[in-house]
């Protein structure tokens, strides 16, 4: 009897080892461990055993059962793992195939530049002011110390609609309007971005429509050194910490003194190259101390208040920053152009 049990165990374990799939394994379980299985059959002969042998034989039978069922369990795991593996093998994909294209758009490069400048000055306590693109001659010229017949009006040939209204030639009228709103009381600290228009033929460097950003600070003790310091912060943030700035005297009717700001040329590090026309410097913006006439016209006491203003062209900055060679690209909106600015710097 004992032998028979041993035999059954060996036989079952062999079959288990050879089982090819879960069904076969289940059949083995049923045939060996089921109620009608050979072990039960063998145990039916227990009656013939002595009282001493009976528990031993019972224990042995349990051992055999356990061995078989754990064999089955083991094999079950193996088969299951193999089945999963086989299934997954069938599900293999080519991971090098391209992913589902995600639709992405991006901001226009000019907006990039404008927002960067806005954020920089917001960080320095400025607010962003906007104004109409069709302006009164008064705000565009007269309030800025450019009375009718002023020779400097020659510098900005304008698109007039009527004698009194024109497409603004700069964003300075926003400054004039904002100053007026302050009713002679400082501080004023604003930055004014927007579209402006001039009667120029469109070519690689001219556009009848372009962007401008101007800044204005008015308070009781604004000095030219403050302008220089502010522009230096701007230039280094915008163009790199290693850029130097220089102020050059210039002329604008609405500022006195007036300056232009250059930054040292990044390409040649100031040694002189074709980009900076061999001067080592690149002109970035115009600026100056607000002309007393402009302050007075807007209702500020020029004995008490001083201020500075600056203005620049986002197109020029974008052209320098990204190496764009033709201003018309900004307004053609060729997707092959726009796409190039979709990388987050």
């Amino acid at each position, binding site marked *: 009897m004992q032998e028979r049990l041993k035999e059954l165990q060996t036989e079952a374990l062999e079959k288990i080892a050879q089982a090819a799939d879960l069904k076969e394994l289940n059949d083995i379980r049923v045939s060996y461990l089921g109620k009608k299985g050979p072990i039960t059959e063998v145990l039916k002969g227990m009656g013939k055993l002595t009282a001493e042998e009976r528990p031993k034989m019972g224990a042995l039978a349990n051992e055999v059962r356990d061995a078989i069922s754990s064999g089955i369990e083991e094999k079950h795991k193996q088969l299951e793992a193999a089945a999963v593996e086989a299934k997954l093998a069938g599900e293999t994909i080519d991971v090098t*195939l391209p992913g589902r*294209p995600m*639709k*992405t*758009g*991006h*901001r226009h490069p000019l*907006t990039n530049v404008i927002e960067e400048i*806005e954020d920089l000055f*917001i*960080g*320095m*306590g400025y*607010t*962003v002011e*906007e104004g*109409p*693109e*069709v*302006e009164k001659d008064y705000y565009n010229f007269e309030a800025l110390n450019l009375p009718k017949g002023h*020779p400097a009006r020659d510098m900005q040939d304008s*698109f*007039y*609609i009527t004698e009194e*209204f024109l497409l603004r030639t700069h964003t300075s009228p926003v400054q004039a309007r904002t100053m007026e709103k302050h009713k002679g009381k*400082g*501080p004023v600290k604003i930055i004014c971005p927007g*579209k402006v*228009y001039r009667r120029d033929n469109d070519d690689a460097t001219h556009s*009848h*429509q372009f962007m401008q950003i101007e800044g204005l*600070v008015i*308070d*009781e*003790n604004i*000095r*030219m*050194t403050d302008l*220089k*310091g502010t522009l230096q*912060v701007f230039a280094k943030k915008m163009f790199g910490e290693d850029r130097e700035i*220089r*102020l*050059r*005297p*210039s*002329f604008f009717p609405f500022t*006195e*003194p007036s300056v232009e700001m250059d930054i040292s040329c990044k390409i040649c590090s100031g040694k002189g190259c074709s980009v900076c*026309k061999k001067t080592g410097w690149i002109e970035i913006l115009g600026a100056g*101390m607000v*002309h007393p006439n402009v302050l007075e016209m807007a209702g500020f006491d020029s004995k008490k208040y001083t201020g500075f203003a600056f203005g620049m062209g986002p197109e020029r900055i974008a052209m320098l920053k990204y190496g764009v060679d033709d201003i018309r690209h*900004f*307004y*053609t*909106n*060729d*997707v*092959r152009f*726009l796409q190039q600015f979709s990388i987050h710097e």
Partner: protein
Amino acid sequence: MYVSYKWLQDYVDLTGVSPDELAEKITKSGIEVEGVETLNEGISGVVVGYVLEREKHPDADKLNKCQVDIGAGEPVQIICGAPNVDKGQKVAVATVGAVLPGNFKIKKAKLRGEVSNGMICSLQELGFESKLVAKEYSEGIYVFPEDTEIGTNALDQLFRDDQVLELGLTPNRADCQSMLGVAYEVGAILGREVKLPQTEVKTGTEKAADYIKVTVDAKEDNPLYVAKVIKNVTIKPSPLWMQARLTAAGIRPHNNVVDITNYILIEYGQPLHAFDYDRLGSKEIVVRRAADGEEMLTLDNAKRKLTADHLVITNGQVPVALAGVMGGANSEVQANTTTVLLESAYFTGGTIRKSSKDHGLRSEASSRYEKGVDPHRARPAAERAAQLLAEYAGGEVLEGSVEADHLSVEPAVVSVDINKINRLLGTELSVQQAADILNRLQFSTSVDGGELTVTVPTRRGDITIEEDLIEEVGRLYGYDNLATTLPIGSSTPGHLSDYQKKRRMVRGFLEGAGLYQAVTYSLTSEEKSLQFAMEARTPIKLAMPMSEERSILRLSIIPHLLEVLKYNAARQNDSLAIYETGSVFLSTDEGDLPEEKEHLSAAVTGLWETHPWQGEKKPVDFFVLKGILEGLFSKLGILDSIEFRKLEKEGMHPGRTAEVLLAGISIGFVGQIHPKVEKELDLKETYVFELSLKAILAEEVAPLKYEAIPRYPSITRDIALVVDKTTTAGELSTIIKDAGGKLLKDVNVFDLYEGDRMEPGKKSIAFSLKYFDPERTLTDEDIVKAHDKVLDAVKEKAGAVLRG
């Protein structure tokens, strides 16, 4: 203004300051030097040669075979194609081995079988600008004066060993339109003395006053008129050095008389005019405004129609010059002129600008008058010119000048306090330091405590207020020497306005949705201005457009975006999604500024989604754009107040366009552009929207408030309704929502069937209704009650039948 470095040395010692260094110093302290040109750059091996023999080339009609003495060794043979080359001329010879501009190397050559050992040069070949070459040499080689030494450096003989600084003058620096003005500036920058030209005129016994009488009727336009008479002049070329200086200054040499007037123009900044006295037709000069309709022939042979706006110089009868702009042909100096009437006048800028503009004539003279000349230079300039005419035209200067003097321009006296200077510049200068700087400009100063009183010479008419003086002090002190500080005082919070913040969000949202931002022009054509406008208004026209294409302010952004789509489609990008935010311009009552409204527009064409290797290609449709808008409105918290309503609009597809309403007010539209427009533009199916940005951003939105996360389950019921084809989902949805009561939380369309199995004229729409009560779990009874109301309502109000 072109400034010859060598010429400038007549007035200021430039020892130790190279042209490049000078350029940098000038730029940093006042005037931008836009370039420094070396006149003989890249040229070598050009000598003065003497043409010993000239004969026709045996095999070429247009070539000459010349034997030329180049001052070294045997004469050389040179083949020359210039029509004016001849025996006995002194010419510029580029010898074998010479280099001409553009790195053009001269080699020994054979021309039609004849050896040529060099090249006889025109001035153009030696780097002269064509427009600056004297007319007689413009079509051929240059011929030196007879006394030029053979074998010497030809460029040195032409005074080309010089550098020219190009100054970019701002309108306030009219004073630097002259060599003297530049000299004062450079003297101040370098802290060196300025030497003025020494003028000594020997005069004859005859008096100018016996020859000419001057009357000025237009005293305001012409406060000072100085006339001199020079007899017995001989018209001939001016000396080479003078021609060279004029050429460097950008003026073409003519003859000695004209050149001398131009020389003074450059030296003093004072325009002069030389009349042929004998051709004047009278013995008087009368300066007056022209009569309307009066005519004159200017010396460029153009007939000028005059008006009372134009100032003319007359002989008492007819105009002999358009004052300050151009002389008349009738009194022009000619080769046989012997007596010259010299005019040195101060005309005011406004009149001259008007004449110059009306006649489209801008001359060296008119541009100086327009920008402003020093009224006190008319006299010394006239004297200096007379001196040169005596010296270089053999003239006899008659005694005295004849003047009409109504001038009352005195030097400006401006005071400034040193504290004001330091306060504005942020410096700590002493009053003496400031005075010293101003003295360098030859301004006289007096100091009283901190107060500086400055007398400004009339040549610096730009200085009238204390800030002008502060600028002078600042720039000569050097902006490089200014400290860098940041404004102190009251701090201000920097921020974007709510509108600006939301606008940035809108842009980000659309970009995230796959649209590129475009920026287009605000000006458009009349035809386009009328397309797609949300509000019909009279288009706003420019008074003086540059082209029809850009003559009107846009009323809609869409035509511009379609233009962009068309441009890209023509370049193999026929699937594209773009948007723009920008102003449109609506006319208002006369006398008011137009209404400017910021709009948001988008245009999407071609494929919206593609996944090529999975074979997926989904063209854009109405619901793509509507979905984007709904997402955007949801983000802005206004979706619940939005309604889409079918719209018929010019240029849009009649069945696929919706008006967008916010709280019942129309704020824009969305839809497919009309297929005929698509065809015109060669576009695939294209959808657009345009909205009032202000309307959607300005809408007040309730502040965000947390709502408890539901603790009880919701229950969903689906219904399929058979309705007439004309019944819209929107109508049904509204009926359902109204009927569903407060338990009905959400209604969604999940199926639409219009296929064959429907009765004609009918369709089936399936809705999913979600019921929910935050306080408890709903019972079947609750749902049935609410749901029955819904079913009754759709049946009653829309004739809907539940689909079995």
